[in-house]
């Protein structure tokens, strides 16, 4: 297992014995290397890096609760105590990922598997008290319990299966044990348990009353839903324009905009990747089925593609929202469900094109089943072009979420860029430029970055189209 | 001796690429007289198509660039004409047909539109007359029911049909020179023969000169009066077709003949020319053919060691004559042996042909038309091998 990927060297060596059916990994690495050699893609990657950093460290960047404080002679860390399970999981994945970047011995697939393993380990542990509550008190015992059992089984399988199938050396296992064991113990002893209704006022009141002896605050000492500060001061109505206190101003109910924007980056990233992932899975399966079975499956599939292609996506999304209500996870699924058409078309076209080609015909003549040719050898080759569609797909998923939120049909209380933008023009005709400019800029830059990367990817994969 | 129709002298063409200038055509000279068929033969990448396109100045500029030489057509240097003057030459005096009849016609216009476009450009006639001319030229190339065919689209026709249409379009303005760039390569063998027969017939009727670009020596044997063999951007042998087939002088030409099957010979294994056509971005020094040349290897085997050198080839190493590798550079990019008239009316560019050292360096000018063909056409008999 020493197929190290060194971008730019593996794929560029001309080796006539390597045909199209060799593993495409080095070729993919080459394409990625070409992509990120371009200025546009680099700019995009930098911005997305910033957004990803904000997403992972949101609670540490903007939080009303102090990192560390001393009150009445007692030290405490309200911020750490109030971390959620998602916060903990993201941090764990981030640091493990960072560590993996310095481990040369692993290939891309192994790194992804390790990250998946960490998620499978940390996420259930971070939520075990809540899962226990659901197990005891849930209203639809059979369905929920069945689902939970299934999830648990999948999780256990991942925990056992991934390390077993990877056959990592003893040293790796030791390192992981040393790093992850304390975390596991900590999560079992003190699972994340944030209070349902956070009260931010208490820290300010304590400070005003002089009860806090020493305090270390987050760089932006406002939580995204910390809204109650001097709400009723008639001289200083919200929303307020940018000031030293609130660098990007405040929104209608007094929450800090920068803080909301930082926390909103988490939703943007999540929606972007999860719904694109769902769309990709559906698209690849439908497209591959059409391209493989042809005949009536293709006919049926093409009608399905036509149906979903001719209902304007936003109307379909709104119909879903109208009947199913608003919820972050539902929104991810719905955006995914309404944007798989392009991927399906692409995979189908690719399969139909490939199955006509001489080398596929030759392989069939030699007795290889078409199934194995298409799925084992050709689907991986189609993956690199699919990356282009993933990149554009993430952009449009982010756009879809902010559109829904902008229309007031998105998330209710969670921070979202589109929701802030929605408040920029008030019903009375007032215009709050800071509420329009900053969140809008964030949406634009993020979408632009993904589009730049997508464009660069496409050029790297198909030099015929490039402008140079 | 009448004036030649076209004389290309020392034509040099460069293409600027991301890795610097490359030189696909390096000092090509050839002459075409009215009514003559001059074949240009060579492997792909030898510069024959670039030479043909450059006569019409259809080399895209940039990246292409004319670095030197002249192309005189009826006394005028085409390279000195303005773009507007050049457009009057294209299609009217010099016409061209291409290798791919499937893609060389615009798919969204009827063939009538496309032929009439050329006629209207050059002949100053009304569109009604132009349509009649177009119909006549379709009839001339042997297309039945031309009036109806004019309104058809290219995709409704077969490849052979389309090539006939291309010929009709090219000849609709009575050009004096037709450049045919591999006109039959993409066609079926039976269609190939028909198209070539058609070209011969039309050429005779109109006393038109043809510059026939091909890599097919059979086509050359049947059609050409003069043959120019090109290698690595230069003409390396030039002679009448009879002369060349009887007495090939250059080792490359010899190799070409040895790789062609012949009737009446004992079926031995066909020979190939070893190695690959050199890459224009990296020409070898000296004679461009020496890495593949069998003659220089044979000579080197018996020559004193100080006259030979060791070179690296694709298969390993070989010993060749030092003269083939080091020669006085003629051009900044070359060092090739010059084209010399080693026999009367027979030019070759190889150091090791008889009489090379004493032969004069002249431009190849051959006013020759073979006799056989005229009879053939009149008698309606096909396929005479000289």
């Amino acid at each position, binding site marked *: 297992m020493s197929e190290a990927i060194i971008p730019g060297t593996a794929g560029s060596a001309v080796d006539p014995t390597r045909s199209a059916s060799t593993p495409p990994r080095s070729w993919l690495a080459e394409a990625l290397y070409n992509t990120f050699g371009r200025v546009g893609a680099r700019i995009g990657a930098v911005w997305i890096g910033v957004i990803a950093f904000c997403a992972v460290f949101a609670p540490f960047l903007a939080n009303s609760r102090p990192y560390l404080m001393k009150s009445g002679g007692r030290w405490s860390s309200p911020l750490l105590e109030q971390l959620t399970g998602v916060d903990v999981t993201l941090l764990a994945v981030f640091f493990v990922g960072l560590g993996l970047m310095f481990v040369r011995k692993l290939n891309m697939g192994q790194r992804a598997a390790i990250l998946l393993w960490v998620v499978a380990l940390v996420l259930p542990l971070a939520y075990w008290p809540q899962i226990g509550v659901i197990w005891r008190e849930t209203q639809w015992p059979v369905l929920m319990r069945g689902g939970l059992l299934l999830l648990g089984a999948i999780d256990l399988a991942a925990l056992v299966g991934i390390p077993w199938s990877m056959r990592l050396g003893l040293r790796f296992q030791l390192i992981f044990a040393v790093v992850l064991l304390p975390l596991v113990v900590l999560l079992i002893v003190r699972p994340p348990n944030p209070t349902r209704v956070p009260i931010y006022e208490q820290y300010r009141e304590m400070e005003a009353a002089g009860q806090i002896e020493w305090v270390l605050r987050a760089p932006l000492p406002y939580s995204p839903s910390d809204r109650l500060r001097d709400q009723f001061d008639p001289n200083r109505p919200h929303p307020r324009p940018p000031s030293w206190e609130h660098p990007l101003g405040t929104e209608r109910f007094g929450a800090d905009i920068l803080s909301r924007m930082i926390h909103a980056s988490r939703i943007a990233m999540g929606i972007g990747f999860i719904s694109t992932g769902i769309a990709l899975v559906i698209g690849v399966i439908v497209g591959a089925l059409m391209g493989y079975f042809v005949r009536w499956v293709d006919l049926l599939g093409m*009608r399905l593609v036509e149906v979903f292609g001719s209902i304007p996506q936003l109307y*379909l999304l709104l119909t879903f929202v109208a009947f199913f209500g608003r919820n972050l996870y539902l929104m991810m699924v719905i955006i995914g469900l309404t944007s798989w058409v392009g991927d399906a078309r692409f995979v189908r076209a690719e399969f139909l094109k490939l199955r006509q080609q001489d080398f596929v015909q030759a392989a069939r003549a030699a007795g290889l089943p078409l199934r194995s040719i298409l799925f084992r050898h050709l689907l991986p080759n189609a993956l690199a072009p699919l990356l282009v569609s993933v990149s554009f797909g993430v952009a449009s998923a982010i756009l879809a979420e902010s559109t829904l939120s902008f*229309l007031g*049909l998105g998330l209710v209380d969670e921070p979202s860029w589109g929701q802030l933008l929605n408040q920029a023009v008030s019903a009375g005709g007032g215009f709050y430029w800071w509420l329009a400019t900053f969140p*809008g800029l964030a949406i634009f830059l993020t979408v632009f970055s993904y589009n730049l990367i997508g464009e660069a990817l496409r050029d790297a994969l198909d030099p015929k189209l490039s402008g140079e | 001796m009448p004036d030649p129709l076209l004389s290309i002298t020392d034509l040099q063409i460069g293409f600027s690429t991301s890795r610097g200038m490359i030189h696909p055509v390096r000092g090509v000279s050839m002459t075409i007289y009215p009514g003559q068929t001059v074949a240009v033969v060579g492997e792909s990448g030898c510069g024959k198509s670039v030479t043909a396109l450059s006569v019409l100045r259809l080399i895209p500029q940039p990246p292409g660039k004319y670095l030197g030489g002249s192309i005189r057509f009826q006394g005028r240097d085409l390279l000195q004409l303005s773009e507007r003057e050049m457009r009057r030459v294209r299609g009217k005096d010099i016409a061209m047909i291409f290798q791919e009849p499937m893609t060389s016609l615009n798919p969204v216009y009827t063939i009538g539109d496309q032929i009439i476009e050329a006629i209207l450009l050059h002949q100053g006639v009304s569109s009604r007359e132009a349509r009649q001319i177009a119909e006549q030229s379709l009839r001339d190339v042997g297309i039945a029911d031309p009036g109806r065919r004019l309104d058809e689209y290219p995709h409704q026709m077969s490849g052979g049909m389309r090539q006939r249409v*291309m010929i009709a379009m090219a000849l609709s303005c009575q050009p004096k020179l037709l450049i045919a760039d591999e006109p039959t390569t993409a066609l079926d063998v039976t269609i190939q023969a028909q198209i070539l027969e058609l070209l011969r017939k039309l050429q005779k009727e109109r006393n038109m000169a043809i510059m026939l670009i091909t890599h097919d020596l059979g086509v050359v044997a049947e059609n050409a009066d003069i043959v120019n063999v090109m290698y690595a951007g230069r003409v390396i042998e030039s002679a009448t077709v009879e002369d060349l087939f009887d007495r090939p002088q250059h080792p490359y030409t010899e190799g070409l003949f040895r790789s062609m099957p012949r009737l009446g010979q004992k079926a031995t294994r066909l020979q190939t020319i070893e190695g690959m056509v050199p890459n224009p971005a990296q020409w070898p020094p000296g004679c461009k053919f020496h890495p593949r040349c069998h003659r220089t290897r044979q000579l080197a085997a018996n020559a004193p060691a100080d006259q030979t050198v060791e070179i690296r080839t694709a298969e390993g190493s070989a010993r060749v004559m030092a003269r083939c590798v080091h020669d006085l550079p003629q051009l900044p990019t070359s060092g090739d042996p010059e084209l010399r008239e080693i026999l009367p009316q027979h030019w070759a560019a190889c150091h090791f042909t008889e009489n090379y050292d004493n032969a004069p360096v002249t431009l190849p000018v051959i006013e020759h038309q073979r006799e056989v063909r005229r009879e053939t056409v009149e008698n309606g008999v096909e396929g005479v091998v000289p």
Partner: protein
Amino acid sequence: MLNYIIRRLLLMIPTLVGITLVVFWVMALAPGGVGASLLSAEGAMRPQEREELRKYLNKRYGLDQPKWKQYLRWVNQISPLGFEVDDAGNYGKFTFKAPDLGESMPRGRPVIDLVAEALPVTLLLNLLTVPIIYAIAVTTGIYAARHRGTALDVSTGVLFISLWSLPVMWVGVMLIGFFANRDIIQLFPTGGLHSTMADQMTFLPRFVNGTWERGWLLDTLWHLALPVICLTYGGFAFLSKLMRAAMLENLAADFVRTARAKGVGERAVLFRHVLRNSILPLITVAAGLLPGLLGGSIIIEQIFSLNGMGRLMIDAINQRDRELVLSITFVISLISLLSLLLSDILYAVADPRVSYE
């Protein structure tokens, strides 16, 4: 040609059925099913109204029946060809009839009337936008292809990606905030399709007593300027890139070399031979453009207070008027399906290689 159109129309039928399936099952699979989603507003109703709603729902959907029967019932009602239903719910003969899109409960009006009022606004907006998109895309595409590789070409390339990435709602909010604002610059109206006085205006502009009156036409255009800007830029940025790529491909084609060898001038090569072939992919894309535009016009109508289909949709969702939501989605899908058909026919006309058989 007629045969081709008829064949295409017949092929539309399964897709249309598919659309009704998707739209209906989104409703039917929602928590609580068809009835619940419509009944959820009943808490605020008087007993009499509630009774009426129940009666209406039972008649329209047959809530006591299995879901597939409910679906068939609904399809029969919205279809222009089907069984007649009398007031008692008995089925009559199979004929052509007026499609029944149901009744909007919160508004107390037939859905079809509401749609008939809103649809022209949306169509006007989109029909104004499409030609503008194409005009700009074709010109800029040609320009970029002719000046390939120059600084201008590269910079317009980047500009177009950024235009394409600009969220419509952001541009709309910024435009209305900065250019239709008493406190900043009031160049444009803040919303609506006409001024309040538009009814009394003449159609064309004129001078009345030495003062200029802009007239109905200019007034409408003035109101539509910002919305149309918002709807256009993304489309032409996308199409212009496509046009450029098509031009570059065709400029390198063999038939262009043939044309040059005939002595055709560079301009004629470009406009007669290259352009015609490069337009073809743009016609195909037109079909995909309209669904996007229709989606975009939801946002635009919301920002600029235009009473079109999009605004009606948002209001319907906020009022929990599910019947209206269902019908709007269906009608909009029908329109984009028709545009798909139109672009197919246009393509068949423009490209001789497409056979009609």
